[in-house]
Structure formats: C-alpha cells, structure tokens
C-alpha cells in the first residue's frame, strides 16, 4: 500500500524524470530488437519495420504505462482542463455571460451564508454557550416579564438545576472626573455570579461576591475594557481606585476583557453585543414579603445534563411554594426558561432562512440558465463532438471533458463571487437594523470559503451534467452527415431546453411574489400611523444622580425649569420631558383599581404607566382626543390627575365619557389616593411592527407617586438640527455642568430605523427577484432565438408564400407564450404553497394576496414577451432566397 502510494507520488511529481525513463526504456528495447533482426540478415529498413510490428504502437504502450503507473486520471484531468480553457477562450462573450451570472448568484449565496454562518451557526462567544438560559415570567397578558428580586433570590437558594444563577437589570450611570466631560455610560446592575454564568473572567481584579448584594455594600464597579482604555488610559492600577459615578464614589474591583458580550436583555433593552460600559452590584433592598415589583431578568448556566425544560419545571415548583409560603393564591404567572441562543437569534432566524431560500432559488435559476446556454452551445458543437466520437473517443471521456468545462465555469464564477460577497457582506451589514443580533460578527470567514467552494462545485456538476450527457449521445454518423444542422436529437434537446426555461420562469415568479408581498407589508408598516408626528422632533435623555437630586421636589423643579428653558430656544414650538419615548422598549406596567368597576377574575385591570410634563404630548405630536393636557397647575397639593390613551378608555370604559372618572393604585384608597382622568390622548403604537396599543396612562410629572430621576427630553423645533442639539446641551449644562446629555436622536431617524428589518428583507429579496427575472429573461431569449435560427428556412418559405411580418412575429410569440404561460402558472402555484413561510414576516398582507399575484403574473409575462420580441423581429428578416438555398 505504502509502496503503491510512493510510486504514484513519484510518478506524479517527478513526471518529467519518469517520462524520460520510459522513453529511454522503450528506445533501448527497440534498438536491441532492430539489432537482432539485422543480425538475422535484414536491411536496416526491414529490421525497423519488423521491430515496430513486434512491439505494437509505441504511443499506445506509453499511454498504457502511464495508466499502469496510476496517474492516468490526473493526466487526463489536466488535459481536460486545458481543453476546457481553450473552449472558453474561443468564445469569450459566452464565457463572460455565463461566468458573470454564476458569480452573481454564487456571490449572493456566499454573502447570505456569511450572515447565517456568523449569526446562526457560529456559537455564542461564551464557553459552553448551549448551557446558558434566560429566565422570565410569563402570563397570558405578558408573554415575557421580568422577575421580582426576592423571587429570584428564592429561586437561586432552592433550585438545583443551575451551576450558577444570576440576575441583571439596566442601570446606566453618569461618569464624571474621567478623561472627558461627564458621560452617560451603558450600565447593568448584576448579582454575584453573573460572569460565572457567562463563563467570563475579569482581566484585572475580580467579580462581585455575594456580599455586595446587601444594601450599603454596593459602591463597587467592574469596568469594560473599552471604558478602562478610553476613560482611564488603561491604567494598570485601576483596581482599588475610586471613581465618581452618579456623584458617588465607586471602587473599581475589576476590568472585563475586550470581547465581553452583553447577552441581550428584554426590559429597557440594550441589544446583544459588546456595548455595556460597566457593571455595578444589584442590592436587595426593601421588604422581602412585598413582591409586586418586577424589574430584574434572570440568566443561568445549567448543570451538566439538565435541560431548559427541567429547569423550568423546577423553578415553577419553587414559585408555587413561594406563593404558598406568602399566603397568596394561585396566580396566572409561570416561569419560562429559554436557551440564550434562541433568545439572541430567535427573531432573526426565520428571516435569514427565508433569505437563504430566496438566494438558493436564484442559484437554481442561474444553473438552469447556464445549462441552457451550454445546451445551446452543445448544439453548435455537434459536428466537433461527432468527429471525436468517430475517432474513437469514449463517451465517458467526452462527458468528463464537458463536465470539466462546466466545473471550470462554476469555480471561476465562485472565485469571482467570493470577491463580490466580500463587498456584499459589508453592504449587507450596513443595511442591517441597528439591533440585529451579532451584526458586528458578520464577515467572510473560512466556513464561507468552504461553502462557496462546495456550492460552486455542486452547481458546476448540476448545470453541466445534463448538457454533457446530452452532447455525448450524438450519433457520430448523423452528426457528420448533416454537417451540424438540424438533427434528430433536436426534438429531445428542445424539449429539455423548454423545460429549463419553464422552470426558470416559474422560480423567478416565486421570488417576485416573495418580494411583492414584502413590499406590500413594508408599505403597510410605513403607512401605519405611529400615533405621533415624528418630523422636526429632537430627543435626548438626562439622568439626575440620586445622591444630589434627593427629593421629588428637587427633581421636579429641575425638569420644570429645563423644559421651560428649552421652550424659549428660538424656533422651538414645544419642549417636554417624559419617563420614556415611543419604541424604546420601555414597558413598565401596573395593576389598578377603577372607581365603580370590578375586574373580572384572573384578569385584573392593568395598564402601562408613564410620566409626562405638560408639553410632552404637544412636543411629540400626540393628539388630544378629549379633555385637556397637563398644565403647570397639576402639582402637589392639588387634585391628582392622569391622562390615559384611547386604548385604555376603550378597554375599561367602552362607550362612556371617561373624563372625570377616577382610578387608584391603592387597594384600600383614601379620598386623596384617587386620581382623576383629565384627558384622553391618541394611541401610540407599542411597537413599530404592529398597530397594537396596550392601555396606558400618564402621571403628571409633579404628581407622580415616585421620583423619576431619568427622563427623556422631547423638543419640537423648526430650527437647524445641529444648532438645536447644541442648544439643548447648553441648556442642560447651564442648569448643572456635571450632567451628561445622552441618546441624542431625531425622532424621524428612529421611525426610519424602526422598519429596518422589513426593509432589509425586502431590499434583499427584491434584488434577488430582479436578478432572477433577468436570468429568466436571458434564458427565454436564448431558447427562442435559437429556435428562430433553426426555423429560419421555414419562416423564409412562409414569407415567400405571402405570409406577413406580423404573422411570423405572431408565430414566434405564440411559441414563447406557451413556455412563459406554463412557467408563470406553475410559478404562481408554487408561490401559493411557499408563501406560507412568510406568514410571520409580513404585516397585514395575505400570503395569497391577489394583487401581488396578479401583478407579478402580468409582469413576468410582459418581460418574457419583451425578451422574445427581438428574436421574433429577426425572424421576419429571413430572406426566402438564402433560406431556400441553405436547404
């Protein structure tokens, strides 16, 4: 075996030496043979002839020797490659068209695969990431709800499913005294064990221990690598140093390494990725028996062999036990444990798979197209192939040769496509929605190279095999006799080519319909009324350090002054502040009691609560439907008031006039605990991707039950955007130079960004569909023009016999229409079954939308007929005399 291998290797790599030896060996034999015959008395010439006869054809012998050496396959492979290369050079325009179309479609596949490979296939950047799970509560009303801290602590104490279980909650901080002016940093409050769950370790210092969770011990912080470098010059002695966060001294206990990825969170969310600046301890404060507040999210690392389902049922059992211990009844809440992977990529998975499907269809069409072009060329090469068959070439060798050619085309296309993909991926990433999971990890990587190579090779065989077999089937006698013109193979050949065109057209239909449905969905989303007027609205956020702004009165006065000052900036129409802005993931809910109404069992009255200053609604352009907005008069000591949204009025007071009605958050309210509804405002969509609005209400800024130190600013102004942003910063600085203004953004940008995902999907599928219909048109054009060239004599004859140009055009178009109609009908039927996968991706459009189907059907037919018109016109130019003479 080893000997065999060594021998072959020598034969392969020292080919020249081995060949020389072979020549030498055979010449030696021949010379001796001649010598022998001469000794027997022959003349030199006779001796040579006899020797040659005895030996046989020496080229044949050499070939057999090469075969015996075991390098035959490679030798012929190299020959085939040279042959294929010559063939392609000899017809450059054919080569360019076919290689370019393959490159486009393979490149598109590689680009999409890059995204899939980085987002879906590559594992999350934590050790053993499959063991990490997220823990939520769930109920009929709230599918994904945060945990109560004390509940969480009980889970952690009693559960046995986890290696470690931790909780975290968004808590941004303002850093002052760093190397720049005050900055707001993205922060999270974490319990001990948070990084152990992720399997990450600080590069300096240590993680929080459980002691920091007790109130009073919480003034510690772990920094991200980025903040350590940008704010503290990567000081090696940072651990132990005190830094000023929210006007309080925090001790740095650790620095996480670069590449520490935030696992994503649901509540006041920060997208998955390396975007957290610091972590500080979560402390358990307050009365452990009061468990109404839910604001931390759970994350855990499962023990070996424990599944998410097992952990879920264990936690549910613990939850039931807690409720029993606290003397509560059965609740509608359940614990939900979800693998982190699903949580991170779950929502994008389907869209990416749809994109992969779409781009795969493009590749299929490109293959059909290439097969068609090769078939057409095989027809013109019939004579050559017939000659080679007649000269004794074996059919398998011919198939191999033609396949080598198609492989060469596909691999060239793949190499070119990979280059396109590298550029395409950059464009893709820039098109991606800002919160797309793992977007920064997307690049052309080794798996993408492998994928591209495999796809190229597979497509080369796919589109090359049928034409190759078809070509090798030629009967040499006929091929020679008929001089390469119409032959009996043509019937079968044209049936095959027709079938290819029909499938190209039908697949292009499918993609066009996909794109059409996505376009309609996108338009629906864009035309949805968000509930506010986004033009000329600047937003920003400010966070007041609790250490300095201790009382409601101080906080209230600050925002009151700030909004008044902002309103006096030239060009500003209205300026307000509120607890949150639309579509920022804010989702704080409360149950409530309504005067004179009893909630149905298991369905308490509930609503999302917000806080707003008087001009908040006007600044955002949220319309007032009934009653009034807040005024400066809604302050402590006066009648406490709320404004509710239309959805809440509809849900709890259907058909009633709600202004003047009263609600409370106390189960045993005194007279002063009641809040009076003074206004109803229009609904703001909860999410940009649907028209739904949950019931919601607003407290007046100065009357809210608790202090909101963090507020969002809303300024409506016709002033120049740049100067306005600067003016807002100045006003904040004028009130308190230690404050940072964060998240400065224009509302219309937020609105534009909110449909980024559907727009991304539509743009891509649209591009693929465009490519698909172009390829299908090329395919149709190719087949029809070939058929026209075949039928030229017939057309000539017809015209000689008095047929009009129009008649001939009609004839050609009729043939084309047969193909195109079949393809379109098949495509529409196929789309009808396939479009169902889009169901969750499209908004307010039926997957069987008649408008889309009708429009696409007509469009495909129109494009295809257009593609046939050129060959049809050519047909009318057929000169009867030439045509007849050729016959």
């Amino acid at each position, binding site marked *: 075996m080893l*000997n*065999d291998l060594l*021998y*072959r290797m020598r034969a392969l790599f020292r080919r020249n030496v081995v060949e020389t*030896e*072979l020549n*030498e*060996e*055979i010449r*030696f*034999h021949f*010379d*001796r*043979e001649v*010598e*022998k015959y001469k000794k027997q008395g022959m003349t030199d010439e006779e001796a040579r002839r006899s020797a040659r006869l*005895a*030996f*046989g*054809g*020496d080229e*044949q*012998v050499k070939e*057999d*020797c090469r*075969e*015996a*050496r*075991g390098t035959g396959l490679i030798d012929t492979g190299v020959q085939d490659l040279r042959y294929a290369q010559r063939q392609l050079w000899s017809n450059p325009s054919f080569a360019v068209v076919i290689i370019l179309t393959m490159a486009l479609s393979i490149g598109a596949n590689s680009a999409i695969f890059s995204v899939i490979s980085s987002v879906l296939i590559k594992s999350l950047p934590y050790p053993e990431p499959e063991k990490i799970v997220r823990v939520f509560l769930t109920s009929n009303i709230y599918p994904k709800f945060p945990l109560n801290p004390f509940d969480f602590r009980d889970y952690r104490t009693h559960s046995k499913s986890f290696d470690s279980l931790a909780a975290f909650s968004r808590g941004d901080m303002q850093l002052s005294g760093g190397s720049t002016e005050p900055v707001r940093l993205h922060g999270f409050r974490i319990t001990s064990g948070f990084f152990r769950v992720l399997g990450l370790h600080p590069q300096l210092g240590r993680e929080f221990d459980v002691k920091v969770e007790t109130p009073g011990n919480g003034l510690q912080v772990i920094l991200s690598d980025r903040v350590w470098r940008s704010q503290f010059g990567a000081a090696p002695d940072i651990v132990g140093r005190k830094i000023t966060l929210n006007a309080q001294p925090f001790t740095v206990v650790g620095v996480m390494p670069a590449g520490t990825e935030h696992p994503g969170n649901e509540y006041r969310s920060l997208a998955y990725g390396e975007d957290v600046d610091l972590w500080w301890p979560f402390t358990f404060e307050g009365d452990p028996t009061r468990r109404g507040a839910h604001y931390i999210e759970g994350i855990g690392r499962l023990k070996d062999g424990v599944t998410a389902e097992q952990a879920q049922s264990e936690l549910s059992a613990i939850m039931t036990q807690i409720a029993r211990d606290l003397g509560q009844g059965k609740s509608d809440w359940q614990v939900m444990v979800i693998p982190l992977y699903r949580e991170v990529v779950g929502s994008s998975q389907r869209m990416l798979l749809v994109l992969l499907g779409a781009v795969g269809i493009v590749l299929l069409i490109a293959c059909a197209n290439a097969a068609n072009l090769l078939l057409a060329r095989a027809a013109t090469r019939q004579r050559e192939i017939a000659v080679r068959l007649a000269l004794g070439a074996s059919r398998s060798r011919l198939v191999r040769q033609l396949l080598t050619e198609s492989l060469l085309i596909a691999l060239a296309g793949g190499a070119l496509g990979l280059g396109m993909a590298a550029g395409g991926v950059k464009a893709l990433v820039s098109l991606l929605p800002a919160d797309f999971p793992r977007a920064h990890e997307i690049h052309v990587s080794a798996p993408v190279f492998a994928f591209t190579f495999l796809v190229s090779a597979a497509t080369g065989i796919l589109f090359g095999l049928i034409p190759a077999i078809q070509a090798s089937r030629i009967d040499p006698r006929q091929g020679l006799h008929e001089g390469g013109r119409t032959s009996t193979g043509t019937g079968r050949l044209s049936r095959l080519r027709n079938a290819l065109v029909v499938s190209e057209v039908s697949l292009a239909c499918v993609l066009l319909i996909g794109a059409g449905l996505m376009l309609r969905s996108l338009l629906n989303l864009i035309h949805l009324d968000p509930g506010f007027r986004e033009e000329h609205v600047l937003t920003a956020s400010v966070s007041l350090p609790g250490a300095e702004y201790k009382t409601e009165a101080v906080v209230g006065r600050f925002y009151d002054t700030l909004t008044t000052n902002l309103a006096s900036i030239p060009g500003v129409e209205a300026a307000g502040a509120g607890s949150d802005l639309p579509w920022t993931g804010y989702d704080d809910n409360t149950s409530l009691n309504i005067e004179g109404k009893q909630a149905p069992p298991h369905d308490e009255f509930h609503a999302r609560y917000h806080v707003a200053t008087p001009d908040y609604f006007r600044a955002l352009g949220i319309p007032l439907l009934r009653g009034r907005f807040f005024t400066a008069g809604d302050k402590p000591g006066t009648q406490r008031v709320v404004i509710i949204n239309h959805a809440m009025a509809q849900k709890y007071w259907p058909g009633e006039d709600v202004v003047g009605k009263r609600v409370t958050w106390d189960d045993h309210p005194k007279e002063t605990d009641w809040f009076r509804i003074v206004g109803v405002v229009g609904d703001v969509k909860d999410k940009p991707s649907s028209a739904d609005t949950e019931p919601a209400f607003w407290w007046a800024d100065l009357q809210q039950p608790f202090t909101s130190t963090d507020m969002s600013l809303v300024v409506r102004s016709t002033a120049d955007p740049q100067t306005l942003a600067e003016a807002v910063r100045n006003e904040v600085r004028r009130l308190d130079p230690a404050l940072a203004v964060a998240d400065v953004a224009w509302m219309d940008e937020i609105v534009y960004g909110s449909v980024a995902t559907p727009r991304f999907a539509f743009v891509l599928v649209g591009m693929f569909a465009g490519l698909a219909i172009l390829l299908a048109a090329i395919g149709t054009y190719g087949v029809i023009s070939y058929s026209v060239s075949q039928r030229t004599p017939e057309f000539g004859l017809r015209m000689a016999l008095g047929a009009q140009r129009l008649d001939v055009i009609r004839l050609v178009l009729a043939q084309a229409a047969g193909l195109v109609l079949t393809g379109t009908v098949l495509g529409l039927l196929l789309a009808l079954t396939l479009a169902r996968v889009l169901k969750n991706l499209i908004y307010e459009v039926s997957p069987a939308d008649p408008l889309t189907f009708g429009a696409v059907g007509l469009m495909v037919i129109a494009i295809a007929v257009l593609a046939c018109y050129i060959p049809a016109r050519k047909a009318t130019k057929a000169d009867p005399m030439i045509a007849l003479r050729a016959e």
Partner: protein
Amino acid sequence: MADERLELPQGTLDLLILKALALESLHGWALSERLQQVSREALQVQQGSLYPALHRLERRGWIKANWAISENNRSAKYYKLTRQGEKQLEVEAAAWRKLAAAVGHVLDMA
C-alpha cells in the same frame, strides 16, 4: 505462422514475468526474448504489452527496477524480484497449477 501461437490468457503474463525474473534480473528486451525462448515460441507476447505489465508489477512492489549498464554497454532498466514478489510468485504458481489440473480433469472426462 503467428496464428498458430497461443494468446496469453488474462493475468498469466504477470506470472510469466515473475517466474522469469525469479531466475535472474533482466531488462525489458531480454525479458521478452527469454519469454519467447522458454515458451519455445509457442506463446505470443506482444512486446509492447510487456512494459505496462512491468510498471504495474513495480507499482505493486513485486519487482524493483534499477538502471545498470547492459551487455552492449548502454544504460538499461533492469528489473528484479522483491521478497514480496517471491511470495506472490509462489501463490500465483500454485493457483495456476491447481487451475490447470482442474481444467485438465474436466477435459479428460469421458
């Protein structure tokens, strides 16, 4: 004249080559001469077919080649049997005798 000579059955050429090389190492031409002599001119070996067979046997490791100076002072490629080739010769010779005997039996049946 050529018609009276026997065509070699498939696979027997290898056996004959191994046997001839078992006696002494030879170059290709000498081997072809030897085969004709010892078979008393009865076997028809197309000289050309000898070389692919030699290359195949060499690949299998049954014979080994080296270049040496021939009797007429030219450099020639000599083949000789390897240890493995000796074993192979025994195996094939035994198999051949068995086959020949069996076929002989059948033909001798009354």
